[in-house]
């Protein structure tokens, strides 16, 4: 399948990467090339093969339910491009 511009635009929107049309076409061509190349996987028979999860067959380790973190507002706000008092701020979003 070949990638069209509308799909490329939709993908860019989903990824929240604002691209001009000229750039989008450039991206479309690049991705289309890569997609054509990865199409080689269609020749692999994966009937009955489970998708890989992790690299070792270990299950998830679970931690105890204790408060060990948080209480570090200064640290978490220290890198914010914009803040107000104890908050991060963004342009008003209306629901």
């Amino acid at each position, binding site marked *: 399948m070949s990638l069209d511009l509308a799909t490329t635009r939709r993908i860019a929107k989903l990824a929240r990467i604002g691209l001009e049309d000229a750039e989008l076409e450039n991206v479309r061509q690049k991705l289309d090339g890569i997609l054509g190349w990865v199409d080689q996987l269609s020749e692999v028979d994966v009937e009955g093969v489970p998708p890989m*999860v992790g690299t070792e067959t270990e299950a*998830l380790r679970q931690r105890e339910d204790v408060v060990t*973190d*948080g209480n*570090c507002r200064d640290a*978490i706000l220290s890198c914010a491009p914009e803040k107000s008092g104890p*908050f991060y*701020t*963004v342009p*008003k979003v209306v629901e």
Partner: protein
Amino acid sequence: MSYVIEGKTGSWEIVVGLEVHAQIVSNSKLFSGASTTFGAEPNSQVSLVDAAFPGMLPVINKECVAQAVRTGLGLNARINLESRFDRKNYFYADLPQGYQISQFAHPIVGEGTIEIELSSGEIRKIGITRLHMEQDAGKLIHDQDPTKSMVDLNRAGVALMEIVSEPDIREPEEAGAYLRKLRQILRYLGTCDGNMEEGSMRADVNVSVRKAGEPFRTRCEIKNVNSIRFVMQAIEAEAARQVEIWESGGEVDQETRLFDAARGETRTMRSKEDAHDYRYFPDPDLLPLVIEQEWVDALKAALPELPDAKRARFQSDYGIPFYDAGVLVAEQAVADFYETVAKGRDGKLAVSWVTGDLFAALNRTSKTIETSPVSAEALGKMLDLIADGTINGKIAKEVFEDMVETGEGPDAIVEKKGLRQVTDTGVIDAAIESVMASNADKVAEYRSGKDKLFGFFVGLVMKETKGKANPALVNEALKSKLDA
């Protein structure tokens, strides 16, 4: 089918399924060690993991897993010994990672059922499709600045259970009963406090309408309704809206809507065209969650008695009616209170005191069962005083009111006020004689056949003994003296 919407083209039934987000009771968050306490200073309960700083990684909280399993067991549901976490990808200011870690393809809990009781007394089963764990998002505050929204991440990463029902609900009332029952079970289990005002339980409501016998039509999802009453109102409003669309020849669009409680209507939040493409995939920072059957069995063995079982047991152990037992088990604290009062005593008497005088007193004093001025032990002791004849039922009312007011024990009140029941026949005989002497005319009337006057004499004798005379002894002695 009792709930139908009569339209121009005939009657319509509603089809409702509920997705309930219930905040898991735990000390720390699902994947971070930050606290979950409600109402803390903004952004004070946020770890670097919750704020999604570069290189931060999730580590799962074992208690949250246990709580999800307990809930699954409480919903008579299948527990999946292997489950997984996926990422649900979307951008929003309250979602620091740019994805929510959730269980999409492999939830920890599969199919189950809840039994609900309608006001008619009818019992219905509502199917549970699944229960999965996921992270909560942060909170946006819109009213502090005219142009900006403030982001508070205290809630970001708190563990939620999403409990999805089958589209089995056919009436607004059933939706209410389902939510109340679910909340009751969660509270009994101690897995969610069920507090809808604080947002620890929220419902997404899927509504569609159809004519009887039809397959399902397009549904709309009403997001984040935060009270049981609003859920019922939202269903009515949304169903009416859909009927109108269908009947006017239109087509209901599958979309996400919001319930505007002030206006009593639902409105579009986002339509199918700008529906999200969440790009779910297994979270590569996490491995499959594998739990042992023995662990599940141990959790099951340690489960508290749930409302349905307790109700049945109260009926048989204490000989009380189904309805009363239902009232008692509605809240675990009430059930526990009752059981303390009733154990080893007259269960029927206990239920009438608890649901009668006690509830009235709590109501009057704006107290709850937890803050009741009369403890279960004290009420029990009062019933003992009735049983052993120390006081009679009438005096008990007075003792009880004093208990409510002063918080003192029944013994102390009986002593203080000298309310001990009079069983001394000498005292009773003297009182009768005194009454008869000063009412000779009435005695004569009685003796000439006006036996209705018997009650009149009982009242006077009780008055003479300040209500403390044993009523049975009074009856007996009065009868023999009047009839002599």
